[in-house]
C-alpha cells in the first residue's frame, strides 16, 4: 500500500481504460444532474469520485451500474459503445455496485440478500444450493470482520454498519471487472473502514477497475490513483495521484477558497467555553452566518 506498489501496478497494467465516459449528461426532467462528464476507469486503478452533497456522484455511478440511462454523451466498455438498460445488464458485463442506499431487501435473510440476483443452484431442478450459499456468505462476511451468527435473520433487523458490510461484501464477491462503491465507509467503524480500504486495494491489485466515492479526503488519498471532483454536475478537477498532495486534495474537495474561510471562522470559536444549560425556544438556534454577511453576536 506504499506508493511503490502503486507505481508497480500502474506499470503492470495496460493503460487502456476498461470503461470510458465521454461527455455524459443526465437530466431528471428539468434538473441537469450531470453535464459533460468525461471519465476513464482503468484496470488496476482506483478512481475516486469526490464532491459536495448533490454534486452528482451517485447519479454518475448509477449510469455506469445501469440504474439510470444517460441522456447525453457516450459510454464505452472495452472500446465498444454501450448503454445498460438494466442493472442486470451491467452486472453481466462484470460491474458490481455498492449503492449509497445499499439496495437490500429488509425482510429477506442475510444469505438470500447476499446472493440476490446471483443465486447458486444445482441439479436438474435448479434447486438453490443453500448450504453452499450460507457457507460462502459466512466466509465473506467474516473476512470483512463482522460476524452475524444467524444468517437466516432478516437484514432489516441488523445495524446500519452490518448492512453496509453485507452490501460491500456482496459487491466485492461478485464484481468481475469494475467495482463501484458509493460512500461505502459512511456508516462503518474504524476497523471495518480499514478492511474496506484494504479490499479496495486488493481489488485494484487483482486487476479490477475500482470507482470509489467518499467524502473523506484521507480515505481517498490513501487508496486513490486518480481523482475526479464534481461540482454542480460538472468535472472541476481530474488529476492523477502524483499531481496532488493530501492538503491540496482536501482543499479542492472543500471548494478551495471556502475551506480557508471556514477555518478562519471556526478559529474564532473558543473551544474551552462552557455554556450553562438553558432552555431554548424551537428555532432559536441561529444559523451560523458567514462573517462577511453578519457579525456573530456571541
Amino acid at each position: 500500500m506504499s506508493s511503490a506498489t502503486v507505481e508497480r501496478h500502474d506499470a503492470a497494467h495496460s493503460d487502456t481504460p476498461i470503461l470510458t465516459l465521454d461527455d455524459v449528461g443526465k437530466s431528471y426532467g428539468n434538473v441537469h444532474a450531470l453535464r459533460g462528464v468525461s471519465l476513464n476507469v482503468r484496470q488496476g486503478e482506483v478512481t475516486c469520485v469526490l464532491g459536495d452533497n448533490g454534486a452528482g456522484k451517485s447519479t454518475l455511478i448509477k449510469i455506469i451500474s445501469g440504474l439510470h440511462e444517460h441522456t447525453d454523451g457516450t459510454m464505452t466498455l472495452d472500446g465498444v459503445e454501450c448503454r445498460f438498460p438494466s442493472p442486470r445488464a451491467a452486472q453481466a458485463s462484470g460491474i458490481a455496485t455498492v449503492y449509497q442506499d445499499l439496495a437490500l431487501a429488509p425482510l429477506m435473510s442475510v444469505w438470500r440478500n447476499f446472493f440476490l440476483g446471483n443465486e447458486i443452484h444445482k441439479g436438474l431442478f435448479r434447486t438453490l444450493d443453500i448450504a453452499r450459499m450460507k457457507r460462502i456468505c459466512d466466509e465473506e462476511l467474516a473476512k470483512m470482520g463482522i460476524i452475524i451468527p444467524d444468517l437466516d435473520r432478516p437484514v432489516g433487523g441488523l445495524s446500519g454498519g452490518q448492512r453496509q458490510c453485507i452490501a460491500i461484501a456482496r459487491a466485492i464477491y461478485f464484481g468481475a471487472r469494475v467495482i463501484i462503491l458509493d460512500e461505502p465507509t459512511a456508516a462503518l467503524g474504524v476497523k471495518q473502514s480499514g478492511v474496506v480500504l484494504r479490499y479496495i486495494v486488493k481489488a485494484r491489485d487483482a486487476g479490477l477497475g475500482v470507482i470509489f466515492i467518499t467524502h473523506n479526503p484521507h480515505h481517498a488519498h490513501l487508496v486513490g490513483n486518480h481523482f475526479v471532483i464534481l461540482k454542480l454536475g460538472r468535472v472541476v478537477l481530474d488529476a492523477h495521484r502524483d499531481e496532488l498532495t493530501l492538503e491540496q486534495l482536501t482543499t479542492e474537495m472543500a471548494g478551495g477558497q471556502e475551506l480557508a474561510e471556514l477555518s478562519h471562522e471556526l478559529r474564532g470559536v473558543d473551544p474551552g467555553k462552557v455554556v450553562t444549560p438553558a432552555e431554548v425556544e424551537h428555532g432559536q438556534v441561529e444559523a451560523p452566518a458567514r462573517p462577511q454577511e453578519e457579525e456573530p453576536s456571541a
Partner: protein
Amino acid sequence: MTATATEPGRAGATRDDRVASRSLAARLLSRPEVGSLIGAIVIFLLFMAVAVPFRNIANVGTILYGASTIGIMAVPVGLLMIGGEFDLSAGVAATTSGLSASLIAWNLGLNVWVGVILALVVSVAVGAFNGWLLFKTGLPSFLVTLGTFFILQGVNLGVTRLLTGNVATADISDMDGFVSAQKVFGSEITLGPVTLKVTVLYWVVLTLIAAYVLLRTRVGNWIFAVGGDSAAARAVGVPVKATKIGLFMAVGFCAWLSGMHLLFQFNTVQSGEGVGKEFIFIIAAVIGGCLLTGGYGSVIGASIGALIFGMTQLGINYAGWNPDWFKTFLGVMLLLATVVNVYVKLKADRR
C-alpha cells in the same frame, strides 16, 4: 503494515456472544404460516365439538373439495402478494376462462379440447395484460386489476348474452372431447369412505410446487425481493418486470384451471359467477401469513387459509347455525388471524 494485518481474515472476527442461538421452537414459531396453522386447529376442534356431521369421515371429501376450489386460486394469489401485488380480477378471470372454453367450442362446433386450450391462452394473456398494464401505467396493481375486474365482468356478461342470448352458456356435455376433458377437470376418486374431487389433487400439487419454487429456487428469491423492495431488487440485478408479469400469468393459469373445473363440473357456466371470490383468495393468503405490503408470506399458509375457509363454510352448515352469519364469521376470523400472525411473529423474533 504487517503481512498478517493486510490479509483480512477470520482472525479479526470474534464471535458475538450477545446473540444466543435460537431454539428450534422459536425458529418454527417465526414461520409465517404458524398463525394460520393454529387457527386451523382451533376451528377444527370447534366444529368437531359443536357439529356432529363434522365428525363423519365421509364429509372429509366435501370439506376438502370446498377448500380446494379456493386453494387453487389462493396459492397463486398468495405468491403474487408476496411479490407485492394484488389481483382483484382473479375471481372473474376464472369465469372468463370457463366461458371462453365453452363459447369457443360450442359456437365453432369444435372439439371441447380446442376450447380448453384456447381458454388457457386467454387466461394467461389476461394475466400478462394485467402485469403489462401495471408497468405501462405505473399505477398500483390494486387499481389496475380493479379495472380489469370490471372490464372482465362486463365482457363475461356481454359476450355470453351476445352469443347465446342467455346469461349462461349452453350445455356442452354431448360434444366431442367432453368425456375425456371431464375426466381431467371434474372427476373424482373414492378412497374407502372418502370421495375426493380431482381439484383436491390439483390443489395439493400446486401448493407443493409453489412452496418449492418460493423457497428453493432463484425465482422464489426474486419473488420475495420484488415484493420487499422492488427498487433494491432491480438495483442488484433481479428482473423485476419479468418476475411480476410471470406472477400475474401464474394467477391466469390457475384461473384457467379453476374455470375448467367450473365448466366440467356443471357442464355450463353462469356469466355472473366469480364476483367477490377475489377477496376470498386474498383473505386466505392473509390468514396464511402473507403481508399486504409484500415481501413476506407463505403459500403453505395460503393453503391452510383455504382449508380454514372450507371447514368454516361447511362447519356452519353442519352445526345448524344460520349461514347468514358466514360473512361476519369471516371478518372476525380475518381480524383474529392477522392479529395472531403479527403477535406470533413479534414473539418469535424476540426469542
